């Protein structure tokens, strides 16, 4: 890969990482800890939403984030000709 192309690939990679980490921080640090009390005023099923985010929702989001990363990186690898 030439220099420009590899830099473009790296930029696309770090942009993807940044976006996914924003979601990561939002569900865990922001929703589940800093904003847990206001969110607890809302019910999800029979439990307070903030509590549910902290104990179930954030974990489920984490799993999805990693698979999104793997699939998006596959796409990026194809686009930059790293793999078929």
């Amino acid at each position, binding site marked *: 890969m030439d220099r420009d192309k590899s830099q473009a690939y790296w930029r696309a990679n770090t942009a993807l990482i940044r976006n996914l980490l924003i979601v*990561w921080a939002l569900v*865990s*640090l922001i929703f589940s800890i800093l904003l847990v009390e206001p969110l607890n005023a809302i019910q999800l099923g029979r*439990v*307070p939403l903030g509590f549910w985010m*902290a104990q*179930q929702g954030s974990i*489920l989001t*984490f799993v999805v984030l990693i698979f999104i990363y793997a699939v998006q990186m596959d796409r990026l*690898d194809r686009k930059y000709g790293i793999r078929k």
Partner: protein
Amino acid sequence: MSVELWTIGFVALTFALYLYIGWRSRVRDSSGFYVAGQGVPPIANGAATAADWMSAASFISMAGLISFLGYDGSIYLMGWTGGYVLLALLLAPYLRKFGKYTVPDFVGDRYYSNIARLVAVVAALFVSLTYVAGQMRGVGIVFSRFLQVDVATGVIIGMVIVAFFSVLGGMKGITWTQVAQYCVLIVAFLIPASAIALLLTGNPIPQLAFTFSDIVANLNQVQLDLGFQEYTQPFANKTQLDVLFITIALMVGTAGLPHVIVRFYTVPDVRAARYSAGWALLFIALLYTSAPALATFARYNLINSLHNQTIEEVRQLDWANKWERTKLLAFDDKNNNGRFELTPDQTTNEITIDPDIIVLSTPEVARLAPWVIAIVAAGGLAAALSTASGLLLVISSSVAHDIYYRIIKPDATESQRVFVGRIMVGFAVALAGYFGINPPGFVAQVVAFAFGLAAASFFPVIILGIFDKRTNREGAIAGMVTGLLFTIFYIVGVKFSGMTPWFFGVSAEGIGTLGMIINFIVTIVVSRLTPPPPLAVQEMVEDLRSPSGELPPEAVH
């Protein structure tokens, strides 16, 4: 058949399976010994990572801690799973591309310095030893209750098994054994969780039973009636800032744990490393979303079966008597009214429950079949032993590979290196056994230290090593040393010398976050004040960032 017979049966059966797999995957070369020949498929590596990392603390202690902490227990749930996102996005693909054997190897090469390598080895040893000490109490608890042997005997049995398959099979043996151990531990965790969910709510899926039944609401009410805070009440035990700091320390610590990172060296390529992190977290999430459900059910059930019961009624409970003998459950009728009462006030509370017994006792409290109780014991052992073996390999490879081969004797032959690796595993087993017999404390707490230390030492230098080309040798060494020293100073000060937590009241468990920030700042500042790394190193970083070079380049589609 009695619980004890079932337990011996299951434990013998699963141990025989582990030994068979260890024997089948025995290795001769150092690549097989340290990184399983880099041929482990992503799903299998995901299961092995899950087992490697879900320790006795996750299996035995975590649900119990959540049960007592309520909302505040979320620090463990989010902390330990959130770290995988950092690991998958920021570390795993690049370390796999780097493609050597250990974390200190990366640090040593990236920072072109044997001093950096040595600091990383010391940090790896520190983290692994702290962590392995936590595992051994887990093994001790399971054996002392279910095989009715004393703790020392139980630990020695466990150590012999671990030694056998790690000395013989190295990473390859450990990997396939851990895949089997994952299966055992997840089945062992889900059966009672599902059975108790069905019993209490009529829904066998713990996660759904937890969210859509009124069990959480009922528990909130029971807690209020007894004078406790609501179960879902945030920050009842810890301040908001402390919860935030502990969660971050556990997240970053997870991403910096040497025995977890090394698992990503064992897959065939960068793409496999990305998917393998996803599989690992999916497998972990199966347990980690069931645990808070189990914690709620267990707390509700335990209060209902013990609180305000007469002494005669409690004495008829077989499980209560057996746990009382281990001193992890204690009754004391302080007001002599013939009933045991659970209250938040230590001076009037008459029932003392050690959080470590929640998971192990739940099937008995819920009167599940004896074989369920036995399979939980086998699962707890699988969790403790798989983590212990992963850690022992990190300890041995840190010494045998990073110190002996890379620093002391670079011309060592293949067979000399594997031999030294095996000797070091034996030595590490003996050390772990000593800690098991003389445990330094509470499982999850001790493990929390390891996370804080990992957060404060490795994470910044690895991240900067990949994402900032300008970070140099001087910065990395200074950062690791200050981060580690500060964190050790604070933890030891608060935990052992009665120092008050002076940083906004942040507890010893959460201080790793500050240690990490200090490490980042020191590394960046010192790097900018000293010469940039050599060109060859900058090119190496460039190369790390591209997954190509190990697969044939293909035309753009």
